[in-house]
């Protein structure tokens, strides 16, 4: 560096002599200029030859975690100032050119391209416009360094001073932090994990419990035996006390979930899934055979003729605009038709041929109306639907088949599928009617679609009949009213959808799902795919299963030897039918709080459930990178409870900046940011190539930070629990650091498939080390990494790390007219499980086929909001969830969330763009600035949900008596030039502007501190918010 400075000095000095040259032009200049053409300068000046070029030794490929799409990226590293706290500076982030995610439509470069060459570039800018030295990322990805180099990063472990949320902290050592978390703290009056934790295997308890039920054992005896290990000896099904430690993991999930479920043995492992896509995911999963889960509905954009984008915004959100946006723009250019169903004119709608502003929550009605039209007009693929099994599908050239012809036992209240054994035809096979006789589905070649009869005294209906009846239950006019889409438009859409054979698809995600009727709406949308039978077809529906195996192969990373296997009822009562619990025996209907048989990881209900003590209280909460306070419904309620030591006695949060939930923690542990750490977060690959991304450190900024994994390793080791420390893995290897785990994971990836990856040659080995030395300095120890895997694996591990993952080459994407990676399985019109579940309030059975459900509260009543406008929300175009607020470059694009209001609603209230309004819901009132736009349905208002932070650098904190002021707005102007929609001045506002969307979430008064949620899956009804607005 100093040499550089001096070089500049030298050049400057040269300049002083050279300046002679500068005076000359004053006189000759004009003349020369006139003679030589006035535009192009005769002499180039002020232009040098320093291009800041780089080689593979300055590059590390990793993955972006700015949003949850986890795109593969390339980080170009430069040395920073010697006295900086960091090991290096990340100069620039770009996409990884090896990876299919970032290279649409060009296609990723050959996996075996040497890194040196790949980093030098394999393209030709002049001719093709591409150098291929890097690839695409979205804007949030580009700004990532501002997340990592945020000056507000937590530097040392912090302990709260005063009440929770006081904003006052003191720094403590890691040792003290661990000690107090484990043993408890006298001054904070928090219990230690060691005191709280206690475990006993389920089998042991249940053995004794059956003895009680049979009278062999007395309750007192049982109480005595288990009072120290069970939460409630009267309700042993609640599980061990370990369950009172709840884990909320927003990232590092693979690692933490393994330990939660196998080491700590708590049934209360949560991730952000509960408020992210749970309802959509379950709607999809339950529409397909559940053996392997099909979580998403994504079309093959590259070949589709027509696509419906239904309540998702792939151009800017979803699982990666980086991949989807170029896919879609190129598909449109190719001639693909696109219809967007969304109450607002999203960035995707802008490009669509048709925008259908559906009434929020009316998606089920719209889908059912389309189904009705399709059935009435015989536009479905009848032959496809008749196929009852793989063989018959195959003779049709199909790879999937449906349950349309399967018979349902209507005599049973639970309305299960009729099984072969019910008719004495076999065992668990389903039954279809072929040529008038019932046949096990495996034996039939075609099942009759419409059946309504009695067999052996059992009333049966075919699934198709059940579905058709449901579809016909409402008239087109009724449906039209429910979704507020004209009948003509519905018909036209249904016709269009069924006019492209198998080359149609639907892309759907959170929009239709995040309603109280979300599960049924998502199911109804899935039915459209089933009706045309587009699964696995080129241009049809995709199944996204192409991943390299990461937790098995060379190393079994999933299993915990001598595990404390988690069991018992999770505090959010997901995945458990109420009727099977001991609480049902005690309370009957209605249950105090809803039970969600199809739910999972319902993070948003942890705090209120614990507050009610139903089914029990949690005592400790360990959190990383997720924030129920701002991401869960009813922020104020969430905040009230996390603040209350009676609701949860110990709150530990690993965070990089003190966030909205972390702010209420007892202990804050500084985590490593995504550019500093190992991790494994899988994108849901939406691509046709087998894929495995890698997340590895590319720099180190906060010297004392420790990754959350390390915290778990250290704490669990101190508690003497399995799965960490010595013999942490089945093969006997140990886990003392995250590297011990992640490098093995890379080895698994490297060796998966028919052939492992190549070995890194000497040059690549050298590049590997040099790049990491440059990037990580003293934080890099090659031997430490090397020792985590077997010698024969090392060079392959490097091969994968050098490329930021493993990516299948192009050219093998299809099998004839079908995709190579297939669902190749059964798809469901009927959800047998749902049909067998009951509402824990009313005790009434749920419906097994999709239908146009209304918005209902827990008690089963149709929700009657007392506010005139429906409030929807969506992902900010320029922010990702709430964790990119530190990125000034992103705030420059837009610093707050505006309330979108249609001119019709605006003029009624005399509101103009830029005006401030109060939005009031039945929970609270917030202040917002308005954007009046034609791009939202009248009667609906909305905003993106990524703003309104109250922490994360937006409010003052005090650490060790030193105040840290919140970030201020940029710019020197006393007035505002930006207007909503015209924000090009490039000045970011302060952090924490806008309003918290989740503060508004509607209450459900039919249970304690309730909120609207899907009744089966439990996902919060983020879109069923009703408000009024008044000029402020």
């Amino acid at each position, binding site marked *: 560096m100093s040499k*550089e*400075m*001096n*070089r500049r000095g*030298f050049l400057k*000095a*040269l300049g*002083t*002599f*050279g300046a*002679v040259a500068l*005076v000359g032009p004053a006189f000759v200049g004009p003349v020369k200029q006139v003679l*030589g053409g006035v*535009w192009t*300068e005769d002499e*180039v*000046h*002020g*232009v*040098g030859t320093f*291009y*800041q070029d780089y080689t593979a030794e300055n590059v590390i490929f990793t993955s972006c975690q700015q949003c949850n799409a986890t795109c593969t990226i390339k980080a170009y590293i430069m040395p*920073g100032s010697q006295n900086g706290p960091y090991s290096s500076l990340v100069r620039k982030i770009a996409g990884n050119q090896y990876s299919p995610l970032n290279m649409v439509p060009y296609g990723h470069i050959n996996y075996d391209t040497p890194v040196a060459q790949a980093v*030098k*570039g394999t393209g030709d*800018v*002049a*001719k*093709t*416009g591409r150098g291929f*030295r*890097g690839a*695409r*990322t*979205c*804007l*949030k990805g*580009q*700004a990532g*360094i501002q997340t990592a180099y*945020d*000056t507000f990063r937590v530097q040392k472990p912090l302990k709260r001073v005063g009440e929770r949320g006081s904003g006052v902290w003191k720094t403590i050592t890691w040792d003290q932090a661990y000690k107090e978390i484990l043993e408890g703290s006298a001054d904070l009056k928090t219990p230690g994990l060691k005191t709280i934790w206690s475990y006993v295997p389920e089998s042991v308890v249940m053995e004794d419990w059956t003895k009680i039920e049979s009278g062999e054992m007395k309750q007192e005896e049982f109480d005595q035996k288990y009072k120290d290990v069970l939460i409630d000896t009267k309700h042993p099904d609640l599980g061990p006390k370990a369950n009172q430690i709840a884990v909320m993991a927003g990232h590092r999930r693979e690692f933490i979930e393994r330990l939660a479920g196998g080491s700590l043995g708590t049934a209360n492992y949560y991730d952000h899934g509960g408020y992210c896509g749970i309802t959509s995911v379950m709607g999809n999963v339950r529409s397909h055979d559940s053996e392997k889960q099909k979580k998403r509905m994504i079309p093959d954009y590259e070949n589709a003729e027509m696509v419906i984008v239904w309540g998702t915004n792939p151009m*800017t959100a979803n699982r990666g605009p980086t991949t989807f*946006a170029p896919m879609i*723009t190129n598909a449109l250019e190719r001639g693909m038709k696109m219809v967007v169903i969304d109450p607002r*004119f999203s*960035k995707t709608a*802008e490009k669509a041929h048709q925008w259908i502003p559906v009434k929020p929550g009316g998606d089920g009605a719209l889908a059912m109306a389309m189904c009705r039209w399709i059935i009435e007009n015989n536009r479905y693929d009848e032959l496809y639907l008749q196929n009852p099994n793989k063989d018959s599908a195959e003779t049709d050239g199909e790879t999937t088949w449906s349950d349309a012809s399967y018979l349902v036992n209507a005599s049973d209240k639970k309305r299960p599928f009729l099984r072969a054994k019910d008719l004495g035809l076999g065992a668990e096979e389903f039954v279809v009617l072929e040529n008038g006789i019932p046949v096990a589905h495996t034996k039939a070649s075609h099942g009759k679609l419409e059946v309504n009869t009695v067999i052996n005294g059992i009333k049966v209906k075919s699934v198709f009949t059940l579905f058709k009846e449901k579809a016909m239950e409402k008239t087109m006019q009724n449906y039209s009213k429910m979704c507020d889409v004209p009948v003509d438009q519905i018909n036209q859409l249904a016709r269009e959808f069924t006019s492209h054979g198998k080359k149609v698809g639907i892309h759907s995600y959170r929009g239709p799902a995040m309603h109280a009727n979300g599960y049924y709406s998502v199911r109804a949308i899935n039915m459209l795919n089933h009706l045309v039978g587009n699964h696995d077809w080129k241009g049809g529906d995709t199944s996204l299963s192409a991943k390299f195996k990461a937790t098995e192969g060379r190393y079994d990373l999933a299993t915990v030897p001598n595990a404390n296997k988690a069991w018992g009822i999770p505090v959010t009562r997901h995945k458990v039918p109420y009727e099977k619990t001991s609480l049902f025996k005690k309370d009957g209907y209605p249950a105090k709080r809803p039970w969600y048989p199809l739910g999972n990881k319902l993070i948003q209900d942890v705090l209120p459930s614990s507050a009610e003590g139903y089914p029990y209280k949690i005592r400790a909460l360990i959190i990383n990178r997720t924030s129920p306070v701002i991401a869960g419904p009813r922020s104020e309620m969430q905040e009230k409870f996390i603040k209350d030591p009676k609701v949860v006695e110990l709150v530990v949060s690993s965070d990089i900046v003190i966030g909205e939930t972390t702010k209420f923690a007892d202990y804050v542990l500084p985590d490593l940011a995504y550019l500093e750490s190992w991790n494994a977060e899988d994108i849901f690959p939406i691509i046709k190539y087998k894929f495995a991304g890698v997340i590895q450190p590319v720099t180190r*900024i906060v010297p004392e930070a420790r990754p959350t994994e390390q915290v778990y390793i250290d704490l669990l080791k101190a508690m003497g629990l399995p799965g960490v420390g010595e013999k942490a893995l089945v093969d006997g290897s140990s886990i003392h650091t995250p590297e011990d785990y992640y490098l093995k994971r890379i080895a698994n990836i490297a060796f998966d498939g028919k052939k492992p990856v190549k070995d890194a040659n000497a040059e690549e080995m050298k590049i590997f080390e040099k790049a990491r030395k440059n990037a990580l300095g003293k934080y890099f120890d090659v031997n430490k990494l090397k020792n985590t895997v077997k010698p024969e694996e090392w060079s392959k591990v490097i091969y994968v790390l050098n490329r930021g993952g493993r990516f299948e080459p192009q050219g093998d994407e299809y099998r004839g007219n079908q995709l190579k990676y297939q669902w190749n399985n059964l798809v469901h019109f009927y959800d047998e499980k749902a049909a067998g579940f009951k509402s824990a309030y009313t005790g009434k059975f749920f419906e097994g086929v999709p239908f146009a459900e209304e918005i209902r509260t827990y008690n089963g009543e149709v929700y009657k909001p007392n506010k005139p406008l429906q409030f929807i929300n969506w992902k900010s175009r320029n922010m990702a969830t709430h964790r990119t607020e530190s990125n*000034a470059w*992103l705030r*420059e*694009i837009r610093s707050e969330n505006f309330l979108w209001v249609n*001119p019709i609603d605006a003029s009624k209230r005399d509101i103009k763009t830029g005006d401030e309004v109060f939005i009031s819901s039945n929970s609270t009132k917030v202040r917002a600035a308005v954007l009046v736009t*034609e791009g*939202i349905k*009248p009667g609906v208002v909305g905003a993106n949900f990524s703003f309104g932070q109250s922490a994360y650098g937006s409010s003052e904190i005090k650490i060790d008596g030193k105040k840290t002021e919140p970030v201020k707005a940029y710019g020197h102007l006393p007035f505002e030039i930006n207007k909503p929609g015209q924000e*090009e*001045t*490039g000045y970011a506002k302060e952090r924490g502007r806008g309003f918290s969307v989740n503060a508004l979430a509607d209450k459900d008064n039919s249970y304690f501190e309730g909120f609207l949620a899907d009744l089966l899956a439990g996902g919060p009804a983020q879109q069923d918010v009703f408000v009024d607005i008044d000029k402020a």
Partner: protein
Amino acid sequence: MGLFSKVAPSIKEFGDMVNNILPDGEKELEQSPYDTKLGLDMARDARKVIAGKIKIEDFHKVYSASLISEFGDHFVSGPEVSKDKKYTGPKWGMVIDLKKCIGCDTCTVSCKAENRTPPGMSYNVVLETELGSYPNISVMNLPRPCMQCDKPACVQVCPTRASFKMENGIVAIDNDRCIGCRYCMVACPYGARSYDFGNGYEEEMTGYDEITSPEYGMDRGKRKKGKVPEGTVRKCNFCFHRLERGEEPACVETCIGDARFFGDFNDPNSVVSKLAASPRAFRLKEELGTQPRVVYLR
């Protein structure tokens, strides 16, 4: 000033004039670890080059070896292409397909990240305009880098020729020459220029000041108060430094709508030349005669 004097000042007179205003070069050179004599010799001969007494090619011949040994390959500059020889390198240009542009602002942010421009300065912006009324509406997204006009209004007005047109088509700014009068900003019909007010992100971002972008191939070291380019005008430069190292501009590399194309307009077979031949092609404010090198497809 001798403005209208018939006798041109001698080289020596120039030298004297300059030596009086400028710091003593020899002293500066002494402080540098590099060869003082080399510096002095080069300066002497540079003057001769200016005076037309030696050819620039010869100058390079004489010094390039010693420069490389002194500075390593950081200093591998050949003789500048002389005007008489026909320029044969690429003439850069950009094509932006508005049908594909999704208005995501990824270009804007990537440009910030690449060029590390200060707050309040975006070389590229994306303008959004909503048209029509519910439910028949459309939005027009218009990304706007610098057009690198062939007849640039900014260059036309710049009093110092700090702004000038390079033969590769890029309109450059010599920030060491720019006086910060901002006339070019007022003159640019596209609002493509910004003034460097000297602020930064350091308060919110560790290390922001440590690295500056080598705009126009200039190594400016750390960003410091009062140091060029502060106080001067800046703008999109088609990522000249990236082009020179074989990379397309940052915004083109990352454009997630796949709407931005880049390349050599001199080459009729380049992607951009072909796209620009489309009937959809147009340029902004064509009527002003600025002849932008950024072509849009409508």
